């Protein structure tokens, strides 16, 4: 590309991705994520099975919850970003912020949180909210929630820890900040009892957006996932989101917009590379998040499509940095 910009690529592991070959699940997932890392993909998105699905039928669920799986995968990979879905209904914001802050330290700065803005009535019924939330309540609550989480992630300055044994000063009290949030849905004092993230803050990925969510996403997200559509409609949405980010006082480049693509087993590699190239060159997205129904479909993507994109100068040869933010070309949190 003329300006040197290349596309961002994520792969998404959905519930039901596990084909029941009889092989233990975890080693298969490890192999898959290591392949994605060898292909220098930006990140793997770990979906969280049941509570996110309202289908009622759970087919071949993964035996893991996404944040615990992320921690385990972090110890057997070294570069690829790992993003776990976690719902704003299943966790208190303090607990969720803390879990991800910890995951980010465990992964040395490769963690992200995927929050879905789509309301799931089925989920609420397992979390002592049989009456659920209305759409507007859910939206206001989600925005408040995200603000708390991002605020908690900034509770410690980068140079707060002193480790001064002889002086007896473990940290500098001036560099630790209470959040003192008093809102409509939550009261949270803070700070987190986990140190600052190696990438300043874990990456925030938002998905499941409807029209009224777009401003929230433009204000807060690092990565936005959108459903695919025609190149033209995608371009309109893309420009719209970047404009909203600018209006919120952010560098439009601080928000990466990825289009969800479903991989069918029979798509030929050249056709797929063509399709991604067309959408990317039309500036309808900053990259793609690839979904699949079976892990084996990915062999072809790793072996043929990614190298083809590379040949065309559309995708990186290797990782340049070590954190997820660096793969995504995002500045450290806080000072975007």
């Amino acid at each position: 590309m003329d300006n040197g910009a290349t596309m961002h690529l994520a792969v998404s592991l959905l519930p039901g991705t596990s084909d029941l070959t009889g092989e233990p699940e975890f080693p298969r997932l490890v192999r898959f994520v290591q392949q994605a890392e060898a292909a220098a993909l930006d990140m793997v998105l770990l979906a969280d099975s049941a509570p996110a699905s309202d289908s009622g039928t759970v087919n071949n669920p993964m035996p893991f919850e996404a944040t615990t799986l992320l921690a385990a995968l972090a110890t057997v990979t070294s570069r690829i970003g790992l993003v776990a879905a976690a719902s704003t209904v299943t966790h208190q914001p303090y607990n969720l912020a803390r879990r991800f802050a910890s995951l980010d330290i465990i992964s040395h700065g490769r963690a992200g949180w995927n929050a879905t803005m789509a309301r799931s009535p089925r989920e609420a019924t397992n979390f002592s909210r049989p009456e659920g939330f209305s759409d507007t309540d859910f939206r206001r609550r989600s925005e408040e929630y995200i603000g708390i989480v991002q605020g908690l992630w900034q509770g410690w300055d980068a140079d707060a820890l002193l480790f001064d044994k002889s002086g007896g000063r473990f940290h500098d009290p001036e560099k630790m900040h209470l959040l003192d949030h008093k809102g409509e849905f939550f009261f949270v004092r803070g700070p987190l009892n986990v140190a600052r993230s190696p990438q300043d803050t874990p990456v925030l990925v938002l998905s499941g957006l409807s029209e009224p969510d777009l401003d929230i996403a433009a204000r807060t997200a690092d990565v936005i996932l959108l459903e695919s559509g025609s190149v033209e409609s995608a371009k309109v949405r893309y420009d719209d989101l970047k404009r909203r980010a600018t209006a919120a006082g952010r560098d439009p480049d601080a928000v990466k917009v990825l289009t969800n693509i479903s991989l069918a087993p029979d798509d030929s590699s050249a056709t797929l590379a063509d399709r991604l190239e067309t959408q990317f060159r039309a500036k309808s997205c900053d990259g793609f998040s690839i979904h699949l129904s079976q892990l084996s479909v990915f062999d072809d993507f790793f072996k043929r499509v990614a190298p083809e994109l590379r040949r065309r100068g559309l995708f990186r040869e290797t990782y340049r940095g070590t954190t997820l933010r660096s793969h995504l070309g995002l500045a450290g949190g806080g000072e975007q």
Partner: protein
Amino acid sequence: MTAQMKLGVFLWATGHHIAAWRHPKSHVTAGIDIDHYIQLARTAEAAKFDMIFCEDAAGLREANIGIGSQTSRSIGFEPISLLSALAVQTSRIGLVSTASTSYNEPYGLARTFLSLDHLSGGRAGWNLVTSASPIEAANFGATGLKPHADRYERAREFAEVVTSLWHGKASGHAGQSFSVRDPLDLPRSPQGAPVMVQAGASDVGRDLAARTADVVFTAAQTFEEAKAFHDDLKARMAAYGREPDDIKIMPGVSPVVAETEAEAREKHEELQELIPDDVGVALLSSYLSISDLWRYPIDGPLPELPESEGMKSRQALVVEQSRRDGLSIRQLARHFAGARGHWRIVGTAAQVADELQARFEGGAADGFNVMPSYFPGELDAFATLVVPELQRRGLFRRDYEGLTLREHLGLKRPA
């Protein structure tokens, strides 16, 4: 074969001694170093410990930031993510994390622990606590710490829901604090159900443990206290149709061990010298659930205390010790700073083994939760000096008997 004791190792960043982080040989960046924890877990597994144990608080441990900044307790890993990482970096050792019934929902917590259980091949355990700190409460609402009795009532219902979810019972719970519609969407645990641990020792705490726990973690200073607790808890189990052996009681113990007694004492003194008085007094105050202990003369006795809504059991333990040994606030604070009221033994491997053996064989404990003063040094010392001594005496395993935590602990597999 005669019964053998169960051993856990209680990991806590730089160590259990409040001044551990200042010790020249402690690993001061422990709270941000996952490799340090992986190393500790492997050391413990090589020594055949039953389990790793992690405490938890969803908030700072110290209200006064100036004092908190003089300790290493303000930062660390969140334990469920920590243990999930350790699960795939170890193969045998049990992995127990504390989580609060006060600030979670049972469906989510049951699901997360079951996931840890699958990642580890059946080695997970949950330490149920009711959270006694107002600092934590302030992260979860405007109304402050709920009364002791209310927290325990919520905990009772919470435990009931989690257990039935783990046992694969179709759900449909609608109770006082929680409603849950669906069963869990994860396969059944490789060990039947993750192990239920409990810490909490008041009257209601003991009843809850007698009803639901597989392992009880407790603090006791003297043989008599430990024995009385042990006998009382086991006696309560019959009311719930359980046998005494269905619960393993594992008091905390913090040994400072060396080749010679003089060396051990020196090591202990070295740590004691590193405690600033205000840090020691603040730690003691937080466990006594009072904020103004510093107002009283430091060389005078402990004042009369108001009844605690926090940790009733620990307050009682401290008051009892101050009376028994006639300790001033300063002495009590310095003593308490060593292991927060848990039992401490300073001596050689043989001396430590003698003491553990006496409590084990005297029926005051089924095993111990070992709380090294600082890491990694004191864990290494225990693993290389005390464990072989216990093995020689036939008091501790030479190798794991099975694969799961339930198998290590000799617990029945739930139907």
